[in-house]
């Protein structure tokens, strides 16, 4: 009924692509989140005017297509600086900053959502700025920011499909290679789409559930 030339070796090839997608996403989200928290806190601490340069810098990553960011970074490292940097490193670097740009917004939103009175109360009780951040702001802001952060992480996973442009063979690229060879676009694309969907959908649902649960109390 359904005939396919897809062999076990091809499935392994796809699985490797999927592994690459997950690896690039994990590294970028990890580094990007740390940077994002740093940038977010800096923005809140400095206020809108002083942090303008940082805001502008981060805004670039959200206003220029990721494809162009990747090509530019690759060209800059390779052609301009003449550095021997692998596409994988470039991909992780760009995606990390891309993640950080969005994460900084989420972090800022989370911190701003903690009532000023609560923070003043903490300081009045003799807590230092660090203690206030650690014991008061962090837990409250996390509750607000976590659903958006899950959405961001999933967004980065989907956007990581673009790193093919710096010669990183992730899932979608491996699918395309197989399509060229086997000429079964629909079947292969469905496998690829199913993979993304199966990772993204449950996590997105979980994020929605957290949002719902944490907003009604």
């Amino acid at each position: 009924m359904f005939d396919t030339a897809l062999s076990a070796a091809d499935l392994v090839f796809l699985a490797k692509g999927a592994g690459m997608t997950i690896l690039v996403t994990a590294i970028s989200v990890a580094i990007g989140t740390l940077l994002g928290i740093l940038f977010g806190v800096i923005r809140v601490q400095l206020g809108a005017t002083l942090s303008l340069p940082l805001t502008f810098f981060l805004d670039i990553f959200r206003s220029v297509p990721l494809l162009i960011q990747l090509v530019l970074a690759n060209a800059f490292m390779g052609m301009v600086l003449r550095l021997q940097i692998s596409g994988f490193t470039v991909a992780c670097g760009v995606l990390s900053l891309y993640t950080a740009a969005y994460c900084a917004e989420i972090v800022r939103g989370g911190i701003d959502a903690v009532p000023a009175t609560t923070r003043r109360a903490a300081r009045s009780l003799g807590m230092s700025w660090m203690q206030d951040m650690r014991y008061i702001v962090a837990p409250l802001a996390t509750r607000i920011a976590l659903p958006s952060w899950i959405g961001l992480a999933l967004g980065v996973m989907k956007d990581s499909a673009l790193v093919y442009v710096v010669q990183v063979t992730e899932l979608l690229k491996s699918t395309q290679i197989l399509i060229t060879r086997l000429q079964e676009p629909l079947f292969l694309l469905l496998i690829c789409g199913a993979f993304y969907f199966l990772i993204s959908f449950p996590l997105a649902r979980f994020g929605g559930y957290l949002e719902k649960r944490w907003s009604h109390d």
Partner: protein
Amino acid sequence: MFGYTFQWNQALARLPKMLDGALVTMEVAMLSMLIGIALAILLTLLRLSGARPLRAIATGWVEIARNTPALFQIYMAHFGVASFGIHFSPFVSLLIGITFNNAGYLAENFRGALKAIPETQTRAGRSLGMSQLQAFRYIILPQMLRISFLPMTNQMVWAVLMTSLGVTVGMNADLYGVTQDLNALTFRTFELFAIAGVLFYAITKIITLGARVIAARLFRY
């Protein structure tokens, strides 16, 4: 300072071509947004409807659009449907892909907006003798569009950024496609793509500022 000589003039000489590409990019984004909004309203209605299969179709659309990469959706619109003997031009494939994505995200935004509108308003409309559809059209819809105006602006920016993916299905008339072709001719990769980046940045800023002006005029009270 660098072991590389920047040749901005060579790249800047190609600016008119890139601006033409920017217009195509805006055109695709605009079209995909207009059709996307119409489809999203339709999806919202389907999700509100009592019929189970209709709701399932709408929910399926929204979840697939939101949980797979946009690039995958464009591939599907180009290579996927080719399996059925349907061959779209790169322009159409790109438009379908982005529109599908837009509609899904917007429908979700609309659903969020609907939660902010009290259900009693529909009932009030019904009591005044409006049909279900009239109540939606005259009472709910305007408020829904107003509440989701900001997310719609964001989606518009996304649509512009997504047009750069058209190059993967052979689109070469949009800003990214034009830049890529010029790069093949001149090998001024960094300069050309830097200019393209600046143009994209300008387009997104025009959209956000334009949306702010429109919002100020439309929602004065």
